[in-house]
């Protein structure tokens, strides 16, 4: 470095990070000159574990990839298996899946709002939002039996029905959030100190968002109307009206800064409430699962052969699961790609040129889920050292493999 810059490591463990991840910063004064991301501290070998289990067991493993996305991963995984084995999901089950997924979105976004406030040093809002989040968790417990890790998804449907007795309780929660939304909007969008810290900070331009394949609220806050619920509707979303939300819906312009990301997430809470209301109104009657007997279902899956992809718009963005079944009890391949994996590199353009004080909120602004994202770590067993393969190396390796299998 030509100037007098110094390096500040943040992570693997740091108060601003909720999960282990390493950042190496080159700092000049208070300004960030260079960022190096070094993920891989939270790799647990979940995909490998999955390949030792049958598809029904994997649902519960997928649920535990991450506590907050505990509906998104099984949702995408079940769709992938259904896609591979050609299982048709009853319509009622699709609606129930959507209701659970949208409730999860409400709780995830409110949780994020609290974390963001804490990163800004505004702990009062952290307590306000997390108290508000309890209501949806209570509802989820009432509907599924668990506050998180709901255990409601099953290949071919869902495990529990939402009956008439449940409806008033759901409506009560939705009313509660309609009431509290005005307060949340007021504290986040009208507070002068929050505006000082978030406006024109951590900007991700539309071009950068496209180039780095950003997904979810991160992309939408940069003005990209990208939402799988809108673009390739799945489950019950095809019957519902879902529009990708961009910040210009509220302010009339797109900046791509953290303030816009707050707006997008707040508006998505409202959108989720509307989706759930539509679901409750239009939910058809019928079965909730394609095959009730699990032994029979397992036998059916054992005979299935093929590949399947499941996609779900998780609260953080598009979550993709890929499954390959090969006429055996265990799936041959299971690949989970969480939204944070795409959003990871958007940190670099957001952070460069910002101050040290912006690091926590910029990192939090994409709502990172390191546990979801860490799928690969490269370790040399002989000397215990980690090594990194860049894009060129991977390309070379894949060319070699193609030559090997196609002589």
């Amino acid at each position, binding site marked *: 470095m030509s100037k007098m810059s*110094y*390096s*500040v*490591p943040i992570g693997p463990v*740091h*108060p*601003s990070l909720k999960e282990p991840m390493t950042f190496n910063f080159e*700092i000049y*004064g*208070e300004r960030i000159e260079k960022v190096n991301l070094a993920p891989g501290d939270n790799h647990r070998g979940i995909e490998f574990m999955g390949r030792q289990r049958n598809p029904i067991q994997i649902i519960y493993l997928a649920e535990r990839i991450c506590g907050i996305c505990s509906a998104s991963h099984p949702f995408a995984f079940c769709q992938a298996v259904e896609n591979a084995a050609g299982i048709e999901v009853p319509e009622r089950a699709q609606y129930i899946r959507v209701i659970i997924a949208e409730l999860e979105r409400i709780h995830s976004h409110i949780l994020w709002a609290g974390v963001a*406030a*804490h*990163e*800004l*040093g*505004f*702990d*009062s809002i952290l*307590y*306000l939002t997390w*108290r508000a989040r309890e209501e949806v968790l209570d509802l989820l417990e009432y509907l599924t039996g668990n506050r998180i890790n709901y255990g409601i998804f099953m290949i071919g449907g869902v495990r529990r029905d939402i009956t008439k007795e449940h409806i008033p309780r759901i409506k009560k929660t939705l009313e509660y959030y309609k009431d509290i939304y005005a307060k949340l909007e007021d504290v986040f969008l009208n*507070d002068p*100190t*929050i505006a*000082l*810290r978030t406006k024109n900070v951590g900007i991700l331009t539309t071009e950068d968002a496209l180039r780095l394949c950003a997904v979810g609220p991160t992309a939408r806050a940069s003005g990209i109307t990208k939402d799988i619920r809108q673009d390739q509707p799945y489950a019950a979303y095809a019957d519902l009206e879902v529009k990708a939300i961009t910040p210009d819906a509220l302010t009339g312009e797109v900046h791509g800064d953290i303030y816009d990301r707050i707006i997008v997430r707040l508006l998505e809470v409202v959108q989720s409430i509307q989706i759930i209301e539509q679901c409750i109104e239009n939910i058809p009657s019928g079965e909730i699962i394609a095959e009730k007997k699990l032994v029979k279902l397992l036998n059916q899956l054992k005979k299935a052969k093929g590949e399947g992809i499941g996609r779900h718009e998780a609260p953080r963005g598009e979550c993709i699961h890929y499954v390959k079944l090969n006429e055996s009890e265990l799936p041959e391949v299971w690949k989970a790609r969480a939204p944070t994996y795409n959003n990871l590199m958007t940190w670099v353009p957001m952070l460069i040129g910002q*101050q*040290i*004080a*912006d*690091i*926590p909120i910029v990192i939090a602004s994409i709502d990172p889920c390191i546990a979801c994202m860490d799928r690969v770590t490269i370790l040399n067993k002989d000397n215990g050292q980690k090594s990194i393969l860049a894009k060129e190396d991977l390309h070379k390796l894949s060319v070699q493999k193609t030559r090997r299998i196609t002589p």
Partner: protein
Amino acid sequence: MTIEGLLIILLKIIGAVIIAFLGVILGLFYKGIDRKLAAKMQARVGPPIRQPFMDFFKLMIKENIVPENAVPWIFNGVPVMTLVATITILFYLPIGNISPLLSGYGDIVLIIYLLTLPAIGMVVGGFASGSPYANVGAQREMVMMMSYELPLVTTVIAIGWKLSQVYPQLNVFSLAVINAHPIWGLVGPLGFVGALLLLITLAIVTPGELSKIPFDVPEAETELAGGLLVEYSGRNLALFSLADAVKTIVMVSLTVALFFPYNIAHLFDLSGIFAIGIDSLFFLVKLLLIMFVEVTFIRVAAARLKIDQVSYAYWVPLSIIGLLGLSLIVLDTIMI
């Protein structure tokens, strides 16, 4: 030296020990109240009021780690210096109608100098700990120090100048004098507005001086993991937390002495020990109310600012408010 002289010195020493002891206890007690009040405002249960005492005793029995890169004698010396400098200010502050212990040996200008000592101590300690976080924290503390000094001094000078116009024969910078002549009674309507502006200035300087949100950039938990204090542990950290508690009392007492030096004993026709007692109690109530406004309320109602924003806030808007207050008081005096 006469026996009498020695006796006075002895009395002063005993007084100093008592005040230091009471100051520390009061500081920790008020810190507990501050945390409890903040918790109530955030709808939490909050820690018990004796929590700061428990934290202090626990820290005292913890291991004291000096990092490899640190300069040990500076690293260990700074907490002591910070605490001593802070406690020394207590000797210059009037409590109720009791005049300061060291009245006549120093005035408010000395207090302003003493107030910068803990900050300088923390900067030196931060640089001496050899951690990048502490380093950044120390740089920020230096910038903070340079920023809030002007508004603080403006407030003090304005009050001193006004007193010197009304009572030219008195030592106007002595806190005993300031304490005896409240500013509100000396000014006309224009000066009243000016004094109000100065009060606002001091109320906003206080959280900065105490490194509380929104001005807690040198410590910034989520950014610098404690900043200046990141490498401190055990006994040293306990001393820093004591110094912080005492400094809160000092800053709040300064507001009381400058703007609210009223006593209530004469209302009840009390005299002697009762008057001292009731005035001291009233002083404690005033401290609590002002601490609630200046420290607790501000820190639950705002997000942490960035260092450039803090610097700007002190240098431009707050300095202007302070200078406006000063000029209103001057205008008020000239027009009369």
